[in-house]
């Protein structure tokens, strides 16, 4: 088994049958991602990156090829089995945060634990959610509802929610798409910190600036990988943030 890789894609295809025309969204992607990697999947719209992301996220099954996640071949699993995989192995972060409105940050973070196969005691759920919020620096805002939080804070809640089930893989789909540049850097800082703690992260982005905070860049075009390289000039979020603040100070002084 492929235990040394968190993710192993082997000639993965995805074809949508829409009417008479078959749309080949992903045509033969092979990819291996090891534990502790931080990968950016890039590509213009229509490149197949969303479809690939859905398959990696166990939301969708490939129509061809094989996909092992944490050693499990999930290309043949049932709907319910996929749900279990998503619950236990994957943490999702979306562009639009996708938090439940009128539900406190804490309860949002607890939500995935409701669906755990093995029941978690209520007090343990509470502790784990509190710990996850602490991890993203939102410990004191647990009782706030999403509409009382800024975009960056909402995304942090989403990250806490993704982490709460201790997944093997954190999956982020344009996590900074709805955020201003400073908040984006802050969020990338959170990711870098989590990655330093050994969590594997895959994110989809179309911004090169953002991709430079990761360790590895995979670029898709027309459903195929065209580039797969290590990020050479990697940015450090903390340093960038410090630089940005200095620049802002300079503007204020001037």
């Amino acid at each position, binding site marked *: 088994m492929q235990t040394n890789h968190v993710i192993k894609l082997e000639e993965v295809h995805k074809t949508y049958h829409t009417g008479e025309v078959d749309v080949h969204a992903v045509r033969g992607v092979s990819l291996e991602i090891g534990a502790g990697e931080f990968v950016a999947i890039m590509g213009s719209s229509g490149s197949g990156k969303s479809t690939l992301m859905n398959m990696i996220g166990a*939301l969708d099954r490939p129509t061809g090829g094989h996909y092992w996640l944490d050693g499990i071949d999930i290309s043949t699993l049932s709907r319910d089995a996929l749900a279990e995989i998503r619950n236990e192995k994957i943490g999702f972060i979306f562009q639009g945060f996708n938090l439940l409105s009128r539900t406190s940050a804490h309860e949002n973070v607890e939500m995935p634990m*409701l*669906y755990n196969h093995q029941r978690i005691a209520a007090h343990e759920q509470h502790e784990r959610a509190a710990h996850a919020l602490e991890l993203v620096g939102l410990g004191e805002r647990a009782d706030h509802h999403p509409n009382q939080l800024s975009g960056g804070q909402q995304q942090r809640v989403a990250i806490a*929610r993704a982490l709460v089930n201790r997944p093997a893989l954190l999956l982020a789909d344009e996590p900074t798409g709805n955020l201003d540049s400073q908040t984006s850097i802050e969020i990338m800082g959170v990711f870098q910190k989590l990655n330093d703690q050994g969590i594997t992260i895959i994110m989809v982005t179309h911004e090169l600036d953002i991709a430079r905070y990761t360790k590895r860049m995979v670029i898709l075009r027309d459903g195929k990988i065209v580039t797969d390289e290590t990020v050479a000039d990697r940015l450090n979020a903390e340093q960038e943030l410090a630089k940005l603040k200095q620049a802002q100070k300079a503007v204020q002084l001037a």
Partner: protein
Amino acid sequence: MRIFASLRIAGRALRRNKMRSLLTMLGIIIGVGAVIGSVSLTSGATKQVEDQVSSLGESVITVFSGNFTSGAMRGGWGSAPTLTVEDTKAIAGIKNVVAVSPEVRDREQVLANGLNWNTQVMGESPDYPQIRNWSIASGTMFSDQDVRSLAKSAVIGKTVVDQLFPNENPIGQTIRIRNLPFLIIGVLAPKGFNLFGQDQDDVVVVPYTSHMHRITTRTFVNDILVEAANDTAIDSVQNDITDLLLTRHRSKEQDFTVRNQLELMQAVTATSRAMGFLLAGVAAVSLVVGGIGIMNIMLVSVTERTREIGIRMAVGARAADILVQFLIEAVTLSAIGGSIGILGGMTFSWLIAHFRHWPTVTPFGWIVIAFVSSAVIGVISGFYPAWKASKLDPIDALRYE
């Protein structure tokens, strides 16, 4: 998924649209309220009838004399004199018979105290008050000795007292029946009107022997009242009476009829039961309409919360989890509606009882039935929307705007 967590999620979803939830519940509230209200009214009416029937004496069997047939003309029950005092004495010997009274009836113009009044004069045995579950308000009942001696003693009802002795104590006074002076030795407790609207208190009771030999001259009795030891003995006693009388009368055809109060009660309560069914039918229709309302709102809710469903599926909710969540929401709606309806129906029946003085009884069984059926309606009407939600594709649901 834990039921408690599901309930919390459902509660939150329903609170989010308070007005809408309330309006959705309204159908169930009205339906259940109507069920409870109508059942309370009809069971109150039934209970009243039952009370009245049992006031006639619960384990009482009445033997009516037979019908008189002359050529092709057939008289009704009691038209032929077939029952005698000897029959009564024979019946008294049957097992499980605790009291008997031969009954002779007559309407007479009675005089007392310078006033006169037309009333029912009954000839009975001293067992009569016991059989009819009737107490003597003042004075005493006549005795077996009075029966043997054809005593001119009378026990009178409340109405007769009111008419003939408006401001006096009637006991010790004389009442004249067909010019014969009868001594009033007792007054019966007021009993009110019977099921057929007759004033039961408008009565003068005398020993049956006095009635048969002094007031009138007859050898047959109108009917015989028999009290069985208990409810369960009624059937066997009834059969024994039939066998006994058939033997005694040596007739092939049954020239008498044996009836018990239970049959009477069933006949009378049949009407109110039919009324109850009608009302319950109307209520059931409104429950169905309420169920459709819930289904409608749940469908809207599923569409509105497609994104939420997508999020839940993305973090690992199985189809069954989503199904259960929406089902619980629908059941919560209908169960809360049902509970409010039960309270409303009980309040309604209480108000009716309080202001209109109608007897109302809310049977506990019906409260349970109403609650369970509203929950079942929730399950039925919530199932399709919940199933639809559970079949959503997580990718499509997440993309839904």
